[in-house]
């Protein structure tokens, strides 16, 4: 009886695992299939490195399907946001794990986790009404810019970075701080020379999660970045791949090259994310050794 039960349980687990993997494969296959017709119209090089995006046939005689600016904007805003978020997040994580008292920590943690629960449209709304207005007053034309998007995005990334980084840091602090103390070594030196390096592997994992979130984030970025097909500058407008897809998918005629090109953009986004994940993964393995 127990054996049958075990077998059934085993089969259930296998099926559920399979469903997860199959849905991933299915999504990738589907996007690829829908993306491929694009390349009957434009070459891959032209698509990736072209800067002209005139996707609607009939409006212009000479349609263009280059997404270089979108790719650049996506990477630009993500890296900028990661830079801000990692600096602030790591600082916060070190404070929470190594300095804050147990009581303060239990009070602060839920607040940080709450940041992750706020819908992105609310972030976008706040960004639009606060940040963009500040930038407008500071003299940025219309106020929408890449920096504003990066700041909004970085706040969204914070909870991912802070909560998992401070968990690891706390664990390593409990393990190593007293060992450092026993040698007469100052707290800050132990934190910088032992606790941080020991936590690096998990901090990098948190960064993978965060950068995935950053590149895919649509709504908040779309609301503050200005959405113009320009090469991104820190105070200029830009448009990310996710924004292009969200803005245009509804109006693209099904089956048109425009429609397929949007799928192809999605595929490019997936590939970039995969590459970044592999890169950080390799870095992690190298550092750990």
């Amino acid at each position, binding site marked *: 009886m127990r054996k049958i039960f075990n077998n059934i349980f085993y089969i259930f687990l296998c099926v559920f695992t399979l469903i997860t993997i199959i849905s991933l494969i299915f999504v990738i296959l589907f996007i690829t299939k829908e993306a491929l017709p694009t390349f009957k119209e434009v070459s891959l090089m032209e698509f990736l490195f072209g800067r002209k995006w005139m996707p609607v046939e009939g409006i212009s005689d000479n349609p263009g399907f280059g997404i270089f600016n979108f790719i650049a904007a996506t990477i630009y805003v993500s890296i900028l946001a990661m830079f801000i978020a990692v600096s602030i997040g790591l600082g916060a994580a070190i404070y929470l794990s190594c300095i804050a008292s147990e009581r303060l920590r239990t009070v602060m943690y839920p607040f940080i986790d709450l940041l992750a629960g706020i819908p992105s449209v609310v972030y976008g709304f706040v960004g639009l009404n606060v940040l963009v207005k500040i930038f407008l007053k500071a003299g940025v034309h219309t106020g929408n810019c890449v920096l504003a998007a990066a700041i909004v995005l970085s706040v969204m990334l914070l909870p991912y970075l802070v909560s998992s980084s401070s968990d690891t840091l706390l664990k390593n602090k409990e*393990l*190593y701080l*007293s060992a450092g*103390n*026993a040698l*007469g070594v100052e707290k800050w030196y132990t934190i910088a020379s*032992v606790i941080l390096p020991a936590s690096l592997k998990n901090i990098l994992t948190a960064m993978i999660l965060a950068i995935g979130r950053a590149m895919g984030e649509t709504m908040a970025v779309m609301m503050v970045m200005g959405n113009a097909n320009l090469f991104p500058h820190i105070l200029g407008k830009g448009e990310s791949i996710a924004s292009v897809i969200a803005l245009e998918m509804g109006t693209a005629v099904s089956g048109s090259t425009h429609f397929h090109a949007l799928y192809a953009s999605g595929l490019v986004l997936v590939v970039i994310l995969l590459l970044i994940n592999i890169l950080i993964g390799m870095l992690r393995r190298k550092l750990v050794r």
Partner: protein
Amino acid sequence: MGETIKTEGLSVSYGKKSVLHNISLEFPKNRITSIIGPSGCGKTTLLMALDEMIKEIPDARVTGNIYIDDVNTEALSMEEIRRKVGLVFQKPVPFPFSVYDNLAYAPKYYGNHDKTSLNRIVIEKLQMVGLYDEIKDELKKSALKFSGGQQQRICIARALTAEPEVLLLDEPCSSLDVKSTAIIEETLLRLKEKYTIIIVTHNIAQAKRLSDKVVFLKDGLKIEEGDAKEFFRSPKEEETGEFLRGIYG
């Protein structure tokens, strides 16, 4: 035969809870002193008080005096105390670096960046714990990859790199197997020629094998102290005898 470290009327409390009462003890130089007693009697607290690790615990309050080489520790900085008094924990905690970097860590912190001198320190300390011949080809390997007993010896060697006079060990063998325990005990017997060793143990047999002097604590009070041979043969206090016979523990 003088003493390296001694306490005078040492009391420790955590918040409202008093853990050690009025402990006056002398730890003789180049001898192994064991601190034994039932769990919760304040053995570890006493050890932590000796190198002021206790001050890292927020609500701990310490009164009384501790002297190292007849100098009151109040006159010494935390760093000086920690350098003079090394501490090895119950669970081996090597840093997640190579063996070499573990041992070079403290000397580098104290400003030694000379490579030949660092090499010499690493080799010398590993020899002291009898580990050098065992692992001399693996100094660049992560310290976490060695066995528990080897890790504990790496930690002892690391504590020695700060050039202490006193070595404190808090149940250093409690997470180790019999063979590693024997090796650590041998190491300690060898080390007492150069260092004053104070060890907390819950293992009476181990205290018997190692100690020159024994201190018996119960409920934060010093019940008895004395020369090890005498102590185990004919304890003066009834409570000590009961503890040694395993009536409570």
